[in-house]
């Protein structure tokens, strides 16, 4: 079966030449291995890129959604206060070798911080200035479950998004060569003057075989049918108390590394002569004790309540709020949790035990 978009075959060394060329025109950010972890870092050469990575620590969506951004400046002169917005500092960039789960992470984040009702100026500016080269994923990790959401391991058109919303080019690594699918006009321009051949039926067949092979390697699965309602019915399930109080550290790692988490706090910093104040947006987390603090404190004062908020937001509330799941199955929140809390396992336990309790109820009835 041919791929959804016209594809071409590109030799590996030509791709490597392209990376150098792209890096001359814009900042190229790619997965780079540092010790036991892989991070998104600027590169100037294809040899610096970890093409075989399974997952990175922070998702690429958070290369675009910066952790600390100045948004306003207040200057006092006498009794008058002048207010000024701070313009975003976005530069032309390119995200290279983004796996499909993370492409979807960017699409989900688009809906919230670049949506119809609210636009984060910094994110929107970086998003507009950044080209994205996707890479179909052949390295299924132990904790990956993108296949459960249809967000991977290979990229395909998703919901109401146009094909070019997710990425500009999409790569698939074949034996020796690369299959390149062009998703947008800027993507076409990235390839200008490059020697390529039209993809053949054999290439498409190899791509499909690789996709099947990747699909068969998933160990982790999350059943999503009826999941939002299932969780809403089980807000007092014992799993919340057991895992929340027993294992959750409120360290916020799960939300910090989540590709779709967007919560922020505003902080003011004033000069000591009290003449100038800069207001910044900073990543915040529902797992933090002070996150939802109002008069008399946080209404989610217990770890149980905060863990339930995270899991239910991703797998239930998000659907009503933004029309899609807030989870793309990348597995980062599980891998980076110091005590290994697993939202898919929590959802699975609720599904199993609810069934058991139903059966028990029927037998007794």
């Amino acid at each position, binding site marked *: 079966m041919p791929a959804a978009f016209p594809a071409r075959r590109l030799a590996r060394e030509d791709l490597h030449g392209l990376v150098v060329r792209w890096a001359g025109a814009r900042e190229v950010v790619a997965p780079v291995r540092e010790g036991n972890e892989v991070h998104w870092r600027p590169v100037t050469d294809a040899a610096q890129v970890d093409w075989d990575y399974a997952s990175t*620590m922070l998702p690429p969506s958070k290369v675009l959604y910066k*952790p600390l951004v100045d948004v306003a400046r207040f200057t006092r002169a006498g009794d008058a206060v002048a207010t000024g917005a701070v313009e975003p500092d976005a530069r032309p960039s390119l995200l290279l070798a983004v796996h499909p789960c993370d492409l979807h992470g960017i699409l989900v984040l688009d809906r919230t911080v670049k949506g119809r009702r609210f636009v984060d100026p910094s994110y929107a500016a970086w998003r507009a200035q950044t080209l994205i080269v996707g890479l179909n994923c052949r390295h299924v990790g132990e904790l990956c479950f993108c296949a459960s959401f249809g967000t991977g391991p290979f990229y395909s058109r998703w919901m109401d998004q146009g094909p070019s919303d997710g990425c500009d080019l999409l790569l698939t690594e074949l034996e020796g060569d690369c299959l390149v699918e062009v998703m947008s006009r800027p993507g076409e321009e990235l390839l200008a003057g490059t020697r390529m051949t039209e993809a053949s039926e054999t290439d498409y067949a190899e791509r499909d075989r690789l996709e099947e092979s990747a699909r068969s390697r998933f160990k982790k699965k999350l059943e999503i049918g009826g999941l939002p309602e299932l969780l809403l019915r089980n807000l007092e399930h014992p799993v919340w108390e057991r895992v929340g109080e027993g294992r959750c550290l409120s360290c*916020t790692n799960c939300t910090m590394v989540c590709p779709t988490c967007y919560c922020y706090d505003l902080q003011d910093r004033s000069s000591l002569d009290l003449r100038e104040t800069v207001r910044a947006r900073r990543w915040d987390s529902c797992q933090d004790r002070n996150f939802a603090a109002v008069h008399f404190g946080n209404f989610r004062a217990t770890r149980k309540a905060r863990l339930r908020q995270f899991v239910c937001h991703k797998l239930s509330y998000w659907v009503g709020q933004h029309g899609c799941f807030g989870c793309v199955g990348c597995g980062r929140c599980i891998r980076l949790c110091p005590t290994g809390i697993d939202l898919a396992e929590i959802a699975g336990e609720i599904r199993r035990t609810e069934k058991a309790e139903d059966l028990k109820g029927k037998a007794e009835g």
Partner: protein
Amino acid sequence: MKKPRLGIFKYSCCAGCQFQLIFFQRKVAELLGAVEVVYGRMETDAGTPEGPFDLALIEGTITESWQADELKHVRNVSGFLVPIGSCATNGGIPAIKNLVNEREVEARVYRDLSTVHSVRASPVDHYVRVDAYARGCPVGEAEVLEVVSGLLLGRRPDTAAYAVCVECKMRGNTCVLVSDNLPCMGPVTNAGCGALCPSNGRACYACWGPMEKPNAPALARQFRLMGQPPDEIARRFSEFGYPTHEFQPGVELYRE
């Protein structure tokens, strides 16, 4: 505008926080220019602890009874009172002595105990109400600037009140706990240092003290699963902030 009257008080500690205030910060001139230092043994020969003060900064742990008496007086004559640094905010290093019987601690240092009148080591807020905390070991520059500017502006200082993990993620550090299997105290430690140790590949050792309501037992159990010996775990949770109810459960789990 009249400059606010500042008093700086030192109790049991290394004096590193005062050094930080008057020597090592990048904004020493701005800080000292924004206030009138009316008392502070390192800063001025003049002045007495009598006050009054618009702002009193307190460094050090309370380990002798005269310190508690003076502290209560300072509270009475000060508009704002802020503990600076780990010793004053959570007991810091001096509070390690709380692990041992008081008499035993005294005997370890002094031969003649008749003139020694030490008490259990406690942070400042065990004795008096405080208006904000400026954490750190030594106190963080950003904490001091935020506390002073916030109080002068009449708004509650917005210092970091979350785990070190937040700063690690914001800096894009490798997680030394998860990826390198190091016994990192970051998940239970108050941020503000900019994740200094993990940024250099080292495990956090909680020198800024506990964050609000950390889950110390869960992290202690995780350290055990990671292969840390019990006495090492107890040591990590008692090096800073042992008098606090936040870190005590982490120590009690594995203390012999």
